[in-house]
Every structure is written in structure tokens, then in C-alpha cells.
């Protein structure tokens, strides 16, 4: 196993270009087969965000190899794969969160509504308002529940008076399914909520600025099963209005919430397809091994 890993890594390093050919009829069984091409259809009919030939480096180390992937409008794309496979890194490229890491370098092309998000004309601040992000660990600010949700609106000057701000806060909390639980204590600190509530608060905070895309980095991994179930329901509802990409370690979760699923392995997008197909009929042996729990 170790040996093949090393083998594969060197081969991956050599691969330079992506081939996004549909090979749905080719059943690949050989472990040593080169993973220099993504299996499945990475492109969406009605794309909101498009990533093309993205390479990411941390210093000299390459973390993402030639990944191309679309996020379609009103769909949930799940990114799965073993730890350290680069799925979180890829997600963070989508709203330039990687800018905050000095040694990180991104190559390739990512667009939002056909606008290059890495172009000089694109403002990262504006981009992040349009492409929101929810993190693995609930991270409410050390402020009241109200101020947490109102933060983005205040920051970007989206509300012109108190009534508008109240409106934004209440709708966002309602959309995040949290309003009924917290309506009597909006001015208590957000850190006093339970883990699941905190995470929904963070989602409310994100949707308060009405983003177009929401990126979720393992949003339920720190939560108990009940809280997780609530979050999953919420994601399904949010799909009506937003484009969502979710990184998850839980295959059940991916199966429950997503329409399409992408499998990452060692920085490489190995396979992508309809969620149903990936979980029932994976084409690549690596995907199959992961899905069936042989490693991960």
C-alpha cells in the first residue's frame, strides 16, 4: 500500500495537464493506473463557479494538482476524500481564503459568474462577501448573537438603519433555523450557545450578507448526530437560493445532502459524478476503496 502510494505520488507529480474526458464506459481496475485525468463529468450545465487547472503550492510543496471543477447554480457539491487530500485547500481557493497564508500560491483559473476571482480587478473583500464560508469549528465572534449576525451587514454597510439591520438579522436567523431558539436572548453572547446552535449562528452570519455561494468546510464534524441532522436539513433548504460546496468526512452526509460528489486523493480530483453514481457505482478503484471503507 505504502509502495503504491509513493509510486502514485511520483506519477502524479509528472502529470501536467488535465483531461476531462468522459470515460464512464471504461472500468478502471488497475491500482497503478495513472491518475492524471479526472474520471467523470466535472462541468455543470449552468455553472456558478468554474475552476480550471488549479494548482496550489505551500512553499515548494504542491498540494493541489490540476483540478478542474464546476459548481452549478442551486446545487450542493460534496468534496470527499481521505485526510490531507487537499479538499479543504481547494475549497479555500474558491473565496481566496488562502491569501491569508503567506506561503500559499495558487495557479490556474477560477471564475465566479465568468469573472476571474484571482484577477487584479477582483477585490478579495467583495469576493468573500459573495462567496461565504462556514468553518469546521463553530467560530462565533466574542459578541452577542445579534451582533454576530449583524456583523457582515454592518461591515459592508448593507443596512441603512436599525430597522433594516433588525430585518436582516431576523431573516438570517430564520433561514438558519435558529430564530425560535434564540429570539429571547439575542443580546447574550454567541459563545454561550450549544455547538450545533453556534454552527447555525455561523451559517446565519454568513447568509446575512446574502452571498451567492456558500463554502462549508466540514460544518458538522464537531457536532453530535442530532445537531448534525439539523444542519444537514438546513443545507438542503439553503440549496433553493444558494450554490453550496461542502467538504465532509462523512460519506453518509455527502450522500444525504449533495447532488454531485467529487472524490479527492493526494491533491488530485480522482472522480466526480452524480452523488448516486459515485456511491453506488464508482469507476475508479481508489474511489471504490474509499467508499467501501478500505482506507481513509
Amino acid at each position, binding site marked *: 500500500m505504502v509502495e503504491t502510494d509513493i509510486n502514485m505520488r511520483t506519477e502524479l507529480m509528472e502529470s501536467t495537464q488535465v483531461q476531462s474526458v468522459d470515460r464512464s464506459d471504461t472500468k478502471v481496475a488497475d491500482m497503478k493506473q495513472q491518475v492524471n485525468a479526472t474520471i467523470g463529468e466535472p462541468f455543470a450545465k449552468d455553472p456558478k463557479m468554474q475552476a480550471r487547472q488549479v494548482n496550489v503550492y505551500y512553499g515548494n510543496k504542491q498540494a493541489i494538482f490540476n483540478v478542474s471543477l464546476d459548481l452549478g447554480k442551486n446545487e450542493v457539491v460534496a468534496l470527499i476524500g481521505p485526510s490531507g487530500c487537499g479538499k479543504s485547500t481547494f475549497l479555500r481557493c474558491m*473565496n481566496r481564503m488562502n491569501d491569508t497564508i503567506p506561503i500559499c500560491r495558487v495557479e490556474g483559473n477560477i471564475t465566479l459568474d465568468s469573472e476571474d476571482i484571482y484577477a487584479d480587478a477582483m477585490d478579495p473583500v467583495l469576493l*468573500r462577501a459573495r462567496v461565504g464560508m462556514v*468553518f469546521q469549528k463553530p467560530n462565533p465572534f466574542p459578541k452577542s448573537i445579534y451582533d454576530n449576525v449583524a*456583523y457582515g451587514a454592518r*461591515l459592508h454597510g448593507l443596512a441603512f438603519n436599525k430597522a433594516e439591520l433588525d430585518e436582516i438579522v431576523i431573516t438570517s436567523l430564520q433561514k438558519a433555523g435558529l430564530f425560535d431558539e434564540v429570539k429571547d436572548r439575542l443580546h447574550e453572547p454567541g459563545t454561550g450557545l450549544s455547538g450545533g446552535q453556534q454552527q447555525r449562528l455561523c451559517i446565519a452570519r454568513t447568509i446575512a450578507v446574502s452571498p451567492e455561494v456558500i463554502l462549508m468546510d466540514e460544518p458538522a464534524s464537531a457536532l453530535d448526530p442530532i445537531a448534525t441532522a439539523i444542519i444537514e436539513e438546513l443545507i438542503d433548504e439553503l440549496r433553493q437560493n444558494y450554490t453550496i460546496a461542502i467538504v465532509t468526512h462523512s460519506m453518509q452526509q455527502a450522500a444525504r445532502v449533495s447532488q454531485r460528489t467529487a472524490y479527492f486523493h493526494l491533491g488530485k480530483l480522482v472522480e466526480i459524478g452524480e452523488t448516486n453514481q459515485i456511491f453506488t457505482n464508482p469507476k475508479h478503484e481508489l474511489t471504490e476503496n474509499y467508499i467501501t471503507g478500505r482506507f481513509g
Partner: protein
Amino acid sequence: MNATTLLVVIIGLTVFGYVIGRMRSIKVSQGTGGPSSLHSLPKYYGYMVALWCGIPALILLVLWLVLEPGILRSLLLDELPTTMSTLSENELSLVMNDLQLLADSGRIDAETDPHKKAAAIKLLELNSTSELMRNVLIFLVALNGIIWGLANVKIDMRARVFVERIIRYLLILCSLVAILTTIGIVLSVLFESIRFFKSVPITDFIFGTEWSPQTAIRADQVGSSGAFGAIPLFAGTLLISAIALIIAVPTGLMSAIYLSEYASRRFRAVAKPLLEILAGIPTVVYGFFAALTVAPFIRKFGESIGLNVASESALAAGVVMGIMIIPFVSSLSDDVISAVPKAMRDGAYGMGATQSETIRQVLIPAALPGIVGGILLAASRAIGETMIVVMAAGLAANLTVNPLQAVTTVTVQIVTLLTGDQEFDSPKTLAAFALGLMLFVTTLVLNVIALHIVRKYREQYE
């Protein structure tokens, strides 16, 4: 043979004990199949004998040195004329000092007062007897230790266990020094303060607004009867500390933020140690700089814009003290800001906050308890700072909030009251201890609160 030589002799005997103990253990083991039949390595038997030799002797020596003066004194008192015993404690100690000087001077023959002469001769006699007794006794104890230790060198003697237990006791003893220091501080300032409060009521001291500690030494001197109202000192201390904090807190906080959030790695690698140099410069140097450069500069500048600035203005001392505290505030802020979890930062960036918005609206509020703790520590440092104010602040106890005037501080008064020659028991010197008590209590409370806040803050994010 004086105490130092005796110490060397004890050390010599201890080393000898080690060598002979080690040899002895090897010899003992020969009957039963060599050193490997011993419970411990031969060197542990050496250590054991050495410990038996050195420790009792050293304990005895220390006891002797501590107790000797008191015993000699009472012996000497018996020799002195009975009139002496009616003298007060103070006068008596003066007489004793006199005698000691006379005895040491080697010119006893020249002394005219027969009582003094006799007493001095007696003192010399007592001294030499005591020294001889001490030396003999301690030598015997050390020797006895070696013999006792050697008697204990047996095959099944668990020498290593013994030695290790003693080492552990010694370690515990060492760690008690820190406790003893605190107790020593508390007792010394407390006792003298209580004596002070017997002559000056504590309420007068804490609430009095006039400070002029110059008491008349002779009855015929005019004027100053001594006033010990410490309010002007507290006010002066607070004024200077406040100026220092106004300079140090924003500057220290902002430079910590700049260095940790904005500066390039190379700039930081150069700038951080350079800033820390400021913390390493001795306070006496800052004092010199404040008194000879900053104070005249502020005075001239004030005059040029028509302000009347005292030559020892609170501003000069405060500004320089503030600069001194910058690296302190800066490194504490750096610590607490970097303790804010990365998730918090990501949250703000993820919402589309700019870097400064993240810092001002998320990082600083999140780090606030830690920063407050740091400011309290800085305040305690400013309040206790001595040399800058001694050299650059005034002596006159003005009750004012005008930073351009001269004020005095608690530490300045402690130094003024205790340097120079005066009797130890006058209210003047005791007042210094009362001020010391105030200083100790204030800084202690500030530190305890600050350390508590900082610890709670860290636990929150761990």
C-alpha cells in the same frame, strides 16, 4: 581561622569523606565477590559519607553564625557596669557598635575610659573563645560524621536510596526559598509599618494630604514637625504611571499588531529584537536620559510655546517610563493576540472583513481580557519603577494633576527616606517601610488580578 577558612575546611573534609567512603565500600565488598555485590555503586557510598560529614557541620556553622552575635552580646552586658542595663535599646546598640569598633581597631591601649577598655578587652576575649569553640566543635562534628558514615558502609546498605532521599529533601528546601522570600518581604515591611503606625495613625497616613517627613532632629530646631499624609505621593505615582501607560499601551499594542499581522518576516526578525533592547536597558540609564535630555527638552519646548514647565516635570519621567514599558506591553499583547484561535480570524476574513477590520473588530475584542491583564501588569511595573522617577521626578510633594509640574512618587520617597545616614527607628525611616507596604500590596493585588485574568483567558481558548 575565620568562617570562610572553616567553610573551606568543611568542604575539604567532605571531599575526603567521599573518597574514603568509596574506598571503604570497595574494600567491604571484597569478602563477598567484589563491588557488584554491593547494593549501590561505590560512588553512592562515597556520597553517603560525604553527606554525613558536610551537612551537620554546615547546619551547625550557619546556626552558630546566626546565634553568635546575640549570645556574645548578652555575655558582654554582664561585664558592663550596671548603669548600662538601664539604657534604651537604641543607645545600647550604639555602645555595642562603639565597643566593636574599638576592639577591631587594635588600639585598645589608647582608650582612656577604663570601663570601655575593660569591655573591649572582654569582647576580644569572648570573640576568640567563641571562634575557637566554633572551630573545634564543627571540626569534631564533621569528623564524627565521617566515622558514622563509614560505619554504615555495609554490603546491604541502600546507599543510593539514602543519597537520593537527601537530595530530594535538599531540593524541597531550595524551593522553599521562594516562599521564605515572600514571607520575609511581608514580615519586614509589615513589622516596621506597624511600628510606624504607632507613632503616626494609619488614617493620617492614608488620607493625609500633606507630606513633609523632615522631623526636627534636635528639640531646638524650628518648623517641621513632620507630616506623613501620603495622598500627594499616591497622586504623583498615579499621575506619572498614567502618563507612562498613555504612551506605552497604544504604542505597544499597535507595534505588536503591526509586527505580528503586517510586517514581513524579515522586518520582524530585525525589529523585534531591536524593540526588546528597550526592555534590556537598565532603568538608571533611562533615568539619566530623562533627567538630562528629555526634561530640559520638554522645558525648553514648553517655554517656546509659552508654558511654564517645571524642570522636573511629571511629563518627562512619565514619557520615558512609557517608552521603557513599550516592549513589555508589546510582548504581552503579542502573546495574547496570537492565542486567539485561527478560526476566529478565518471567520472574519470569510465574511469579507479587511485585515484591519478583523483586527479591530474581532481579534482585539477576543483578546481583550488578555490585553487588560497585560495592561494591569504594565501598570504594576510603572507604579513600582524607581530609578527613572528618583532621577527625573521631584522631591516636593505637590498635589496636582498638571503633568507639567513636579510631583513625587512613593518610590522616590522610599529612596529619599532610606538613603543617607539616619537612625533606623525614626518615624522617617519607618515611613519608608509603610510606603513599601503600600507599594507591595498594590502591585501584588494588580499582579494577582492580572495573572488570574490572563490565565482564565488562556483556558478559554485551550
